């Protein structure tokens, strides 16, 4: 066997490799996709981007619930006259080849008329005729070419939500008005005493007034609302001086043109709103395909198969499952409720719940918990609790899940805004009092001028542009944060708590070592051959580490699901599996997954699988220990405690055997004194992630499994975590510097305002100048400090 890579997906060709059409494939699945593509004239797929495919999973029966027309009706967007339109989320979309092949679905099935991919959202919108096609057939077709759609309860309930495009409209209105008002006010900037200009200036002025109306009452309305809300809750946020500025600008300008006192400040007014909205647009959430709000609903299937009393089967929504129902769980389905196993051998992967990757074996009569994934074979179970009452899902009834962290946190801008408002109002009052004494006719002019020029446009822009840009830089290095607010919170943390399994350990690589009598060469060869025939994940990883080239044809092979496998060759037999299967009485290792081997009914020894810690874990902890308190919060037993104590900094606190609620409570207690960062991965960390000040989910595959959190970090980049924290602190420093910069502009402007010489043209120059220089400064500065990550 050579070390070639799969022509379709680029994975290494292991033991299942297939050669077809002169090309190597890692498995039959990939070969089939290749066949489908080439026979339908879609071979360009491979020319666009090499080895871009994804391996299809076995899905067939999983989507039987799509036979239920009620469920289909809720999922499709449009359904009339034999035409249906549906939008499906496909997490495996990742390159231009994907877009190409998915937009040419009509070549694979004539019933599909249009398919359109939205790459940033990773969705596909398909229009198809229902005469000889259905949603189920579409899903299976997509699954067969490696693009299995992701249909979850979450999506099922979300139906009917509209896309919010109001910010784009507002930005458009403000930009449109800004441009036109600028053109209209241009003649008066030059102040030429020209007869015709003087004659028509009123037309221009009232036109500007007309254009500024939608800006104030539509585009800028959010600032008034926010300021009003702030004042009502006795909070002087940054929107208070902004709203005050916009209001003063508008009223003063209108009075000016009405009484022919001047040309008004409409250009500054529209420009101000336009720049402010631009900042808002820039810090808008950018990772639309990632969901940060996921709870258990995203993991659970929409429907399950219920066994009727008369022996028939029906598909029902999981909310309709009642206690006492008999339910069928198929291979690779997630168990939606707590239940008792009645029939079948359960091999449950609880990695969503605990982060533990090795499957657990259960016999009939044992209890199964919601959230586990059945790996092989069909199960029949009896329901113990309904969906929302199950062990795992109960966690979500905690009130912490309905709280919005961002709204409770006072941002740097808002805390500045408070002092700023006070300062501006006192300067305005003092100046007015002075002019009332000195020259009363100018007093009102000065008062409004101060409010206009002090409008903190540049200050309000500093944070959105700095943090928005930082968010994008983090995204490049695979830390996807929910919003810019998270960066500010990240800069404040003083304690970091880690989950162990799945966060510090990897699910991908296991270290395997052998304990017991050494195996002879013949035995190793037979063992390897036997393992080759099995599809069990443990067999596969064991197969990959065994060094033997001899591959023979087995005379007999037996696989007992959930127990083990047996191979016979040349009157020798070998058994691989659980302790009881091979005949070993005592299974003394509870903490680790073990596979026992016996040759000719004689127990030889066992292979022990251990989780490996991620590379550079020690370095991460050492780096973090310089500035933070550290802790480990694990749901596992303390089998690894000694090992961790040796590796990690001495001050690291360690807690084991923590239930999901315990984790939440522990974080809550810590928060009395500290600001806490929680790093976790599984659903069992969901409570702790929600409770902590910043909850980061570590994920091997960012598209699929991550609980509700403030940010998702690609597992491969965990070693950059210390740098991310440092950078968030530096970003705050940049914001503070830009505050100083914009205060300088304000001082210059205030000089003109207080002395009563503020001309519209000065405001029109100063305002955009300060805004643009702040945008430039923050963008350049963040890009500069972002370079630090490149060297990592």
């Amino acid at each position, binding site marked *: 066997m050579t070390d070639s890579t799969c022509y379709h997906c680029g994975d290494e060709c292991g033991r299942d490799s297939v050669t077809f059409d002169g090309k190597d494939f890692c498995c039959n699945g990939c070969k089939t996709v290749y066949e489908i593509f080439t026979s*339908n*004239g*879609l071979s*360009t797929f491979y*020319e*666009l981007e090499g080895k871009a495919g994804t391996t299809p999973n076995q899905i067939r029966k999983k989507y039987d619930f799509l036979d239920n027309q009620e469920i289909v009706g809720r999922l499709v*967007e*449009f359904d009339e006259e034999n035409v249906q*339109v549906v939008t499906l989320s496909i997490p495996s979309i990742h390159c*231009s080849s994907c*877009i*190409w092949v998915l*937009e*040419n679905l*009509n*070549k694979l099935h*004539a019933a599909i*008329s*249009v398919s*359109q*991919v*939205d*790459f*940033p*959202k990773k969705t596909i*919108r398909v*229009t198809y005729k229902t005469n000889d096609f259905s949603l189920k057939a579409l899903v299976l077709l997509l699954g067969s070419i490696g693009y299995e759609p992701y249909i979850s309860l979450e999506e099922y309930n979300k139906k009917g939500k509209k*896309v919010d*495009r109001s910010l*784009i*409209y507002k930005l*458009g*209105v403000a930009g*449109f008005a800004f*441009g*036109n008002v600028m053109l209209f006010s241009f003649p008066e900037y030059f102040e030429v005493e020209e007869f*015709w200009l003087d*004659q*028509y200036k009123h*037309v221009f002025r009232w*036109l500007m007034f007309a254009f500024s109306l939608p800006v104030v009452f539509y585009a800028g309305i959010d600032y008034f609302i926010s300021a009003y809300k702030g004042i009502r809750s006795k909070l002087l946020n940054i929107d208070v001086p902004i709203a005050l500025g916009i209001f003063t600008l508008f009223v003063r300008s209108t009075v000016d043109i009405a009484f022919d006192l001047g040309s008004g400040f409409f250009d500054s007014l529209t420009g101000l709103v336009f720049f402010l909205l631009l900042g808002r647009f820039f810090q808008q959430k950018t990772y639309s395909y990632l969901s940060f709000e996921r709870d258990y609903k995203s993991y659970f299937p929409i429907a399950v198969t219920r066994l009727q009393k008369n022996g028939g089967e029906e598909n029902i929504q999981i909310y309709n499952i009642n206690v006492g129902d008999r339910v069928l769980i198929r291979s690779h389905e997630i168990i939606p409720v707590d239940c008792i196993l009645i029939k079948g051998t359960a091999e449950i992967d609880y990695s969503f719940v605990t982060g533990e990757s090795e499957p657990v074996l259960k016999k009939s009569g044992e209890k199964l918990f919601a959230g586990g994934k059945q790996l092989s074979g069909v199960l029949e179970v009896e329901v113990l609790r309904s969906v929302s009452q199950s062990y795992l899902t109960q966690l979500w009834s905690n009130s912490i899940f309905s709280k919005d962290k961002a709204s409770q946190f006072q941002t740097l801008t808002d805390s500045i805004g408070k002092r700023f408002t006070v300062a501006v109002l006192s300067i305005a009052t003092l100046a007015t009092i002075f002019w009332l004494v000195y020259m009363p006719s100018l007093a009102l002019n000065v008062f409004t001028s101060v409010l206009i020029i002090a409008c903190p446009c540049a200050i309000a822009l500093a944070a959105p542009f700095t943090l928005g840009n930082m968010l994008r830089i983090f995204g490049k290095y695979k830390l996807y944060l929910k919003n810019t607010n998270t960066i500010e919170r990240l800069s404040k943390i003083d304690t970091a708590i880690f989950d162990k399994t799945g966060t510090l350990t990897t699910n991908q690589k296991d270290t395997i070592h052998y304990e017991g009598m050494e195996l002879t060469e013949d035995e190793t060869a037979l063992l390897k051959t036997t393992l080759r025939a099995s599809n069990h994940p443990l067999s596969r990883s064991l197969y990959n580490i065994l060094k033997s080239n001899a591959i023979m044809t087995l005379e007999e092979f037996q696989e007992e699901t959930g127990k083990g496998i047996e191979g016979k060759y040349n009157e020798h037999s070998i058994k691989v599996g659980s302790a009881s299967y091979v005949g070993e009485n005592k299974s003394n290792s509870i903490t680790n997954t073990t596979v026992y081997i016996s040759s000719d009914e004689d127990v030889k020894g066992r292979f022990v699988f251990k989780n490996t810690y991620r590379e550079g874990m020690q370095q991460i902890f050492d780096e973090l220990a310089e500035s933070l308190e550290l802790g480990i919060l694990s749901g596992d037993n303390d089998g690894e405690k000694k090992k961790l104590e040796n590796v990690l900094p001495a001050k690291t606190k360690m807690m084991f055997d923590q239930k999901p609620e315990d984790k939440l409570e522990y974080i809550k207690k810590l928060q009395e004194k500290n600001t806490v960062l929680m790093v976790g991965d599984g659903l069992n960390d969901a409570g702790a992630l929600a409770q902590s000040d910043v909850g980061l989910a570590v994920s091997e595959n960012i598209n699929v499994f991550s609980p509700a959190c403030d940010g998702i970090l690609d597992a491969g980049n965990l070693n950059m975590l210390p740098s991310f924290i440092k950078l968030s602190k530096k970003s705050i420093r940049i914001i503070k510097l830009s505050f100083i910069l914009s205060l300088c502009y304000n001082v210059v402007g205030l000089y003109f305002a207080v002395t009563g010489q503020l001309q519209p043209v000065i405001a029109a120059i100063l305002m955009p100048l300060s805004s643009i220089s702040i945008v430039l400064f923050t963008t350049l500065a963040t890009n500069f400090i972002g370079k630090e990550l490149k060297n990592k």
Partner: protein
Amino acid sequence: MSVIYVLLAISVTVAIIFFIAFVFSVKSGQYDDTYTPSVRMLFEDELVKDKSNSNKKDIKQTKSTNQ
């Protein structure tokens, strides 16, 4: 000089026409996905070449209208 009213009317009308065009383009979802079209437009050539290879029926791609 009253021609200025005509000129202003024309310029404002043109500006408003473009603004309405903008509103319609947002409404039709043009700004929802700003990335995929940039990739999609590079595909046309492969599609044509591909169609000549296969003898399948030429199904014309039309923009979806069921918004």
